[in-house]
């Protein structure tokens, strides 16, 4: 077995793991799955907005990555390459669900522009404490679901997963200016929509008016 030369666990160097996996070392590939499965799941769930589809995407993306490891040129990070595969798999899922209609991340991007700030009310200093965990999760989920897929994906990769602008552009097959413009609009739209929940209230006592 070829594990003698590679370390496993958190400290293992990613490139060594990738090279070992390329050479057919399944344990090394398992380490890569452990490292990134949560991220791939989050991205898939954000794009498909469907839990079962997201589970399928995790499986399909890692399998596809394993099958195509030989073609990974090591010029980008393994994670960026994996995200690109996962995004494509997630879009294919969306397409199948919409009975063959072509789905791209450009869909709906040109429609209404509610990124122009309408609500400039200041927020409560600790907005996350205004709601309990389940309520907050529901608010955040509904709010992000309202964004067009092309904005949502950019926001998730950049702001939630922490990819750089360049990596996001590569993963989504977009230009850098397109990533920047979508990110700005996504952030402003989310901010606008969250303001109605988090704005500073005049009367703090029992002040939830929906």
């Amino acid at each position: 077995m070829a594990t003698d030369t590679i370390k496993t666990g958190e400290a293992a160097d990613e490139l060594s793991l990738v090279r070992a996996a390329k050479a057919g070392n399944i344990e090394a590939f398992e380490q890569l799955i452990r490292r990134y499965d949560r991220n791939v799941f989050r991205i898939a769930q954000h794009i498909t907005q469907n839990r079962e589809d997201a589970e399928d995407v995790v499986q399909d993306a890692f399998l596809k990555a394993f099958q195509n490891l030989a073609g990974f040129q090591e010029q980008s990070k393994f994670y960026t390459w994996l995200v690109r595969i996962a995004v494509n798999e997630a879009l294919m899922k969306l397409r199948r669900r919409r009975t063959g209609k072509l789905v791209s991340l450009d869909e709906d991007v040109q429609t209404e522009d509610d990124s122009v700030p309408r609500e400039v009310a200041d927020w409560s200093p600790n907005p996350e404490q205004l709601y309990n965990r389940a309520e907050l999760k529901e608010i955040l989920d509904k709010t992000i679901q309202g964004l067009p897929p092309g904005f949502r994906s950019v926001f998730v990769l950049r702001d939630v997963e922490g990819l750089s602008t360049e990596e996001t552009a590569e993963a989504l097959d977009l230009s850098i200016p397109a990533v920047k413009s979508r990110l700005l609009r996504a952030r402003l739209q989310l901010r606008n929509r969250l303001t109605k929940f988090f704005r500073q209230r005049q009367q703090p006592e029992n002040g939830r008016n929906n």
Partner: protein
Amino acid sequence: MTCSEFLQELTDYLDGIIDAPTRAELEEHLTWCRDCFVICNTTQMTIQIYRNSELYELPEDLRTRLRSAILTKCKHQEKAEEPASSPSESSSNSQT
């Protein structure tokens, strides 16, 4: 600098990837424009809230199940590619 010019630069400003002269102009704008100050502040909070949120976390049992399914498929795939050296092999789950 106008408010719409400020907004155009907001993303780079929040990401800290802006040149010093532009940063100075933006910060000067923030000193007198309360609306942009609020927008800047609440947009930063928006990012932070989503970053902190555990929206769509993968539960540990599902993680284990998915990982095992992926690995089974990968092993299966490897075997399919290997030249058949032991044709009578029917079940082996201890591939090394």
